[in-house]
């Protein structure tokens, strides 16, 4: 039950892109068409969902003072987390290349960029600072990925439409994308007061 709360919270209320603005680079760069956005969004869900539990295990059993080594190694956290993320991304890259060459070519250089997608590392760092349990960290990974997926699809759809509007030349493309994201972020802020626990219990 608690895991479900964490999922809902991560996907909507504390959306990684729209509330924390994590993973903006690929979010802005790959959101020109819904089709590629869809592929990248799926890849992010997958990578987040898989790295979060692995990093949880590493943090709990390798780095913490009561872990297997028995030393406070938390200063090595960044390096180990990013190594896990990089190898997972490489794995996803290989899988996509085999499964769907067309998606692979359209994602182009952005696939390796998932590694440097702040949302992935940010998710792991949030997980540590919030002391999630193992179950919750899985839920947070999937929820956060899903929220990211939703956000990129939404902005891609808007950007596809806005191409037909008469935007001032200087604002076309990137500038407009920034302002749109700001507006979406404000819209998502209205979800902030929702208490998932109360929602589940049917209390208002």
């Amino acid at each position: 039950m608690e895991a479900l709360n964490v999922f809902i919270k991560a996907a909507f209320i504390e959306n990684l892109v729209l509330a924390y603005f994590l993973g903006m680079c690929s979010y802005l760069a790959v959101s020109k068409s819904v089709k590629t956005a869809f592929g990248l969004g799926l890849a992010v869900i997958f990578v987040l969902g898989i790295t979060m539990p692995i990093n949880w295990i590493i943090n709990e059993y390798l780095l913490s003072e009561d872990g297997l080594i028995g030393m406070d190694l938390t200063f090595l956290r960044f390096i180990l987390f990013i190594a896990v993320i990089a190898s997972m991304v490489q794995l996803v890259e290989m899988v996509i290349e085999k499964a769907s060459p067309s998606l692979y070519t359209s994602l182009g250089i952005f696939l390796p960029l998932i590694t440097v997608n702040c949302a992935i590392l940010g998710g792991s760092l949030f997980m540590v600072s919030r002391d999630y349990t193992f179950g919750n960290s899985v839920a947070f990974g999937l929820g956060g990925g899903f929220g990211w997926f939703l956000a990129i699809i939404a902005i891609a759809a808007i950007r596809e439409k806005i191409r037909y509007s008469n935007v001032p030349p200087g604002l076309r493309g990137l500038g407009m994308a920034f302002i749109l994201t700001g507006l979406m972020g404000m819209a998502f802020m209205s979800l902030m007061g929702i208490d998932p626990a109360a929602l589940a219990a049917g209390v208002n």
Partner: protein
Amino acid sequence: MSTTTQEVKQVEKEPLFGKKERRLITDPLNDNNPITVQILGICSALAVTSLVYPSVVMAIAVIFVTAFSNLTTSLLRNYIPKSVRMIVQLIIIATLVTVVELMLKYFNYPIYKQLSVYIGLIITNCIVMGRLEAFAMANKPWRSFLDGIGNGLGYGLILIIVGVVREIFGKGTLFAGSPLEMKLIGNTSEFFINTTDSTLFGWYSNNNLMVLPAAAMFVIGIIIWIQRSRNTKLVDIS
């Protein structure tokens, strides 16, 4: 940029600070700005810019990391095995970021607390990785180092502009939290009990929108707009 004074000193060693080298630093400030043109490294730009002081610290940290990761990668570029180059680059970056984190803890704990996870997120700041891939892997150490500094500066410039705008309109202060703290506009009694700074526009009440992360998006959007209106070759055709 005050490269001119340095240039005079190094005039004999021409290639050290020639025209090309200077461009490495000045280009990213405008024509090839990492944030507004290359679209790299935006996450942290938004999260820490509600105040100027953290923005400045963040900018310095990023300049340090871009410069030295570019230098290290460039030194190692002929030895790094192609198949694992991403991981190698990330290890280098992560190491430098850890150094930054330890240094902040050592020298200025309060600001370390304030920046918290965003220090770690420098690792995934695409500027760093992007410059390693695009520049340091193919260029000599000195030039890569300059390229790193230039891109760090270009990034820091936008960060600080956004920070200044957000802090003045959001809180009416500048450099809050640092020894230079001052109250610029708005009602003085609201924040500092015994401030001696004279403030303008006493009627101004703080705009809470500017403190929200969304405001950073608007400010950057507008910076891009201004930049592209002045420099039409950057306009997006699509």
